[in-house]
């Protein structure tokens, strides 16, 4: 049975029709990539799902309308926005607030942040808006995953994360994958392709593709990678350095690890330096 139902959902802002009769069903265990260009209607659809917008048609989560049963529905929804809110309150207070309204234990949120490589306790007195983009993202993910969610709504969740944190994040998602439904919104499918088993593409307020995809890539897998170049390149060193790779003294051989679901994204980075590549080796590690 479907956990989430959108039936003929419409939304209009003055004369502009943003959603044009969306029909979509999502079951528990579904991991949906919600893709589409800017203005396609992804954010509006998510806001209707979170009960933040009034809309035409019917939206239900486990048989409840999010707008009318806000607290019951949102208690089981973890949301990570694409753009972090410019909150001035200290990190500790944000966690205390979120845990308080969600009836969750703040320690769980601190625990998740540690797994993402962020010591939230050490920065609990710092204002949230003074953190770096990556730290904010890790904290919002910690708040979303540090409680019992049945639905995760993630808007470009890993965009600001370093490769190590991405691997930690994918591990956390893997733990939730059978218990929860996930909607992962992105402009680009390749960013999220390995995380999902369904793809929903939107364009101009309509669903133009709704398909299941093979999800053979284990979210927790890890690949050992070796890249050989024909000549050293400063630009390549900079790009691969962001992935935590280490190079040989002459800058011709680079080695490191890539999270399994990130393989397509990693190859996308390498494709920019195709002419420089002498060889690429990607091998799944046993400890992944």
């Amino acid at each position, binding site marked *: 049975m479907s956990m989430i139902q959108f039936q003929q959902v419409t939304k209009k802002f003055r004369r502009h029709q943003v959603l044009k009769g969306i029909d979509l069903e999502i079951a528990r265990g579904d991991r949906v990539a919600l893709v589409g260009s800017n203005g396609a209607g992804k954010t509006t659809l998510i*806001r209707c799902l*979170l009960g*933040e*917008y*009034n809309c035409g048609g019917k939206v239900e989560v486990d048989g409840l309308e999010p707008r009318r049963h*806000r*607290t*019951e*529905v*949102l*208690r089981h*929804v973890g*949301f990570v*926005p694409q*753009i*972090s*809110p*410019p*909150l*001035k*309150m*200290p990190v500790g*207070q944000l966690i*205390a*607030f*979120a845990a*308080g*309204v*969600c009836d969750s234990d703040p320690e769980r949120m601190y625990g998740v942040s540690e797994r993402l490589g962020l010591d939230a306790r050490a920065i609990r007195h710092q*204002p949230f808006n003074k953190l770096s983009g990556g730290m904010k993202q890790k904290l*919002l993910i910690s708040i979303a995953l540090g409680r019992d969610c049945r639905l995760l*709504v993630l808007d470009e969740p890993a965009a600001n994360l370093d490769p190590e944190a991405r691997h930690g994040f994918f591990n956390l998602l893997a733990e939730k994958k059978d218990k929860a439904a996930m909607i992962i919104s992105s402009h680009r499918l390749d960013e999220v392709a390995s995380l999902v088993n369904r793809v929903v593409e939107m364009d101009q307020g309509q669903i133009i593709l709704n398909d299941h995809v093979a999800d053979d890539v284990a979210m927790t897998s890890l690949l050992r990678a070796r890249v050989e170049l024909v000549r050293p390149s400063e630009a390549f060193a900079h790009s691969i350095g962001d992935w935590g790779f280490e190079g040989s003294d002459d800058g011709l051989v680079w080695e490191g690890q890539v999270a399994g679901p990130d393989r397509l994204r990693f190859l996308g980075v390498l494709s920019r330096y195709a002419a420089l590549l002498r060889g690429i080796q990607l091998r799944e590690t046993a400890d992944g």
Partner: protein
Amino acid sequence: MKHLMLTAVADISESLRSRWFLIYTLVFGGVVVALFISGLTESRIMGFTGLSRLLVTYLQITMAILPLFVLITTVRSVAGDREAGIFEYMLSLPVSLASWFWGKLLGRFFVVFLPVVLAMFGAVAWGMIKGVEIPWNQVTLYTLFLISLAWCFLGIGMFISTLARSSDVATGAAFIVWLFLLLFLDLILLGALIREGLPPATIIGIALANPLQVFRTGAMLLFDPQLVMLGPAAYVILDNFGEKGYLAWTILYPLILGTLFAWLGYRLFRKGDLP
């Protein structure tokens, strides 16, 4: 109730770190310090002396700037929070809309009222140290007047914030409301009285509906029980209300008006799109 308190505390925490709060605190603290430095407590103008003189002046200044500060900071931060995406995130958490709205209102009330009353009690404390006689009855009623005035404009500010979709529009609307009420203190009323030949009771009725004028007249009444300074209008007020009745009106009317606007704002907020 737990969610309401959590929202109020979160809003206080946000506000205490805002630049507007710093300016706001400096303005009211600065006013009191400036009044002390200028030697106002030693003056004997129009019969007011000592701390009473200072309080009268402080109240007059507060009446002019408190509503504007409350309106502008409320609409800028509430509408600004919505524009910046704070509502989108915070309202994705399972907090009820009632707890969110009224918690925010309570939190903001605390931060707008605190600097004003702290400055006033700072003046009282200074007066006690200097051995000046403290008019406790006036201090208590002034505090109640300030609570009432701050709540009134906070309610209006929350109403404007929910009505206007952008912080620029909200700020403009808040400024117009303040200006409108300020003009109706004297200027327009006097003009209407002279040009249109309206009965004085109507004019005074309009004035009594203006929370700024209510506050102003209430403050006068504390020092001038016969309202000699107000002229013939005093007869209408005192005949209809009596001294104690008008003091009660000064406290209750702005409270009710603020609550009414806040409630209307809440109704709009609950019905509309949240972010």
